[in-house]
C-alpha cells in the first residue's frame, strides 16, 4: 500500500507574529519553521499503514528551499522518499494553486492513499486536501479522527458539530487528518542519520506548467495585527473567594450583560 503524504512548513505555533515590512506578509526574523502539526498525524498514519501492510511512504512538499527541512524531518521519522516542488512563496495561502501544483507532482506516481493535514497552521484555510482530491479525481474524507484501511477500501470517522460521520470509500482516496487520529512519533537519532542518505526529488514549480504569478487565485492586500485590548477588571480573590465570585457574576450580569 503506497501512501503519499503532503506536508507544509509553517511557523512554530508558539511564534509571536509580527508584520513584515511589505505589510502583506509576516516578519520571518527569528521564526522557527516546523512541519504543520496536522501533517504529523498524516505522516504517522501513513507510516503505521505501510508498517502493517507494506509499501512506501512518499512525503511531498511545495515550498521554498528551507522547506527541505520538513521533508528531512519526515524521512527521519520513516518516510521512504520525498518530493520537493520548489517555489510557493508567492502562493502562500492560495489553496487552489497549491492543490494544482500538488496534483501535477502526483501525476504518474502510484498511490493507494493521499494523506494531508486538516489544515496548514497559519494560513488556516483547510482547503488544499479537498481541492487536490477533486483535481486528481479520487474520493476524499476530511477531518478524520478514526481510520481503518482494508485492501481496496477504507472506513473513516470524520468529526462534525456534535457528532461523527462514518464514511466508507474505495481506494485510492485522500484523507485530511485531525488530532485524535494517532500519536505522532518523534524522529530517533538513527532515523535522522538515515534521512541524510534518502533521496529528495527536486522539481522547479515552473517545470510543472504552473506560473505562480498569473495562475493566482488569492491576493493578500494587507496583513494587520488585531487591535490591542484595553485593560480588564481584575479582582483579588485570595482572601474572600466567595465574595470575589459574587462580584464577578454581578459584573457579568449587570455591566458586561454577558449572562
Amino acid at each position, binding site marked *: 500500500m503506497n501512501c503519499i503524504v503532503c506536508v507544509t512548513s509553517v*511557523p512554530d*505555533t*508558539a*511564534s*509571536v507574529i509580527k508584520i513584515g515590512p511589505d505589510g502583506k506578509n*509576516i516578519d520571518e526574523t527569528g521564526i522557527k519553521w516546523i512541519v504543520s502539526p*496536522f501533517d504529523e498525524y498524516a505522516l504517522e498514519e501513513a507510516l503505521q499503514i505501510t508498517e502493517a501492510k507494506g509499501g512506501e511512504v512518499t512525503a511531498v512538499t511545495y515550498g521554498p528551499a528551507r522547506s527541505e527541512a520538513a521533508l528531512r524531518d519526515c524521512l527521519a521519522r520513516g518516510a521512504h522518499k520525498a518530493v520537493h516542488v520548489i517555489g510557493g512563496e508567492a502562493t502562500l*495561502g492560495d*489553496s*487552489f494553486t497549491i492543490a494544482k501544483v500538488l496534483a501535477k507532482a502526483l501525476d504518474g506516481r502510484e498511490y493507494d492513499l493521499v494523506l494531508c493535514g486538516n489544515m496548514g*497552521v*497559519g494560513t*488556516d*484555510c483547510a*482547503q488544499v486536501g*479537498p*481541492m487536490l*482530491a*477533486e483535481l486528481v479525481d479520487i*474520493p476524499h474524507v*476530511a*477531518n478524520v479522527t478514526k481510520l481503518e484501511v482494508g485492501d481496496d477500501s477504507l472506513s473513516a470517522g470524520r*468529526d*462534525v*458539530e*456534535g*457528532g461523527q*460521520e*462514518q464514511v466508507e*470509500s474505495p481506494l485510492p482516496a485522500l484523507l485530511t487528518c*485531525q*488530532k*485524535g487520529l494517532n500519536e505522532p512519533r518523534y524522529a530517533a537519532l538513527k532515523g535522522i542519520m538515515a534521512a541524510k542518505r534518502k533521496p529528495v526529488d527536486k522539481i522547479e514549480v515552473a517545470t510543472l506548467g504552473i506560473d505562480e504569478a498569473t495562475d*493566482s487565485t*488569492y491576493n*493578500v*492586500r*494587507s*496583513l*494587520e*495585527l*488585531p487591535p490591542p*485590548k484595553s485593560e*480588564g*477588571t*481584575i479582582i483579588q*480573590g*485570595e482572601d474572600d*473567594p466567595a465574595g*470575589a*465570585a*459574587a462580584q*464577578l*457574576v*454581578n459584573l*457579568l*450580569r449587570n455591566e*458586561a450583560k*454577558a*449572562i
Partner: protein
Amino acid sequence: MAGILVFVEQRNGDIRQASLQAISEAHRQAGGDVAAVFVGSGIGDAAAGLGAYGAARVFLADDPNLALYSSEGYGEAVAKAVESAAPNAVFFAGTAMGRDLAPWVAAKLGTGALADVVALEKDGDQFVARRPVYSGKAFATVDSAGSKPQVISLRPNVFAAEETGGSAEVVALDGLSLAIRAVVKDLLDTGGGEIDVAEADIIVSGGRGLKGPENFALIRELAQALGGAVGASRAAVDAGWIAHKHQVGQTGKVVSPSLYVAAGISGAIQHLAGMSSSKIIVAVNKDPDAPIFKIADYGIVGDLFDVIPPMVEEVKKLAG
C-alpha cells in the same frame, strides 16, 4: 454584478443557523439577486422558507441519495446550480460541511476559495474579504486575484441573520449525475447532549490548573449553569484528561463566543490564538502574572477550587 448563490445546510430538515447568516449577508451584499441551493432528501417543504431571509430563488436537490452529506453528491448539486445561476460569488457557511464542500466545489469550478471570512466588502465586481490567519494572531485582507466565481466560506456567528419577509421561487435541480464514492453510512451522535464548543455562545474552559481529569466536573457544572459548552487547553487534552473535540487553540478549535471563561489556564500563545476574539473573556487563575489576564475583560486572582463553586451558586441564583 450577477448575484450570489448560497449553499444552505440542513440536518434532518432543520436549516442551520450559520446558513441563514450566510443568506442574510448575501442579501445585504447583493440586494435581491440572491439564490440558494438546498440539498438533502425529503426537504421540499422547508425550501420556500428560505425566501424569508432574502433568497429570491431556491435550487432544490431532493434525492434519497443525498440524505446524508457527501462532497461528491452535494458538490454536483451546487455545481449544477452554479451553471443555472451563473453567480458572481458562491457563499458557504463555514461549518464542518461548508469547510469541506466549498474547496471541493471551487476546484470543480476551476476557481480559488476564501475560507473563514469574518468581514466582506465590494471592490468593483469582486469581494474583498477579511480573514483571521495564524489563528487570529493576525488578520489578512484578501481578494481572489480575479478568479471567478468567488467561492467564500463565512465564519459562523459573525454575520447577523435577519428576516427580510420575502418569498422564493423553488426550482428543482434535475438531471444530477450522482456518482458518490465516499459514502456517509451513518451520523453518530458523539456529543452526548452537550453543546459543541464550535457552536457555543458561552464556553467554560479548564486547563492544567485543574490538576486532574476528575476536576473537569467543576468546569462542567459552571458550563451547565451558564448554558454553555466545556472547552479545554491543549495541556489538558494532551494529558488525556478530556477528548480533543473540546480543545480550544491553534491546533484545536478557534472560537468566538460571547462569553469565554478560562479557569486554570495560564494563556499560552497557542491557546490565546484560539479564543482571543471572544466578546467577553473571564480568567480565573492563581498566578497574577498569568498571560491570560492580559487579554481578560474580567478576572479573579485566586484558586479555581475556591472560586468556581461559589460562581456556580451565584449563577444558579440568577436563574432563580
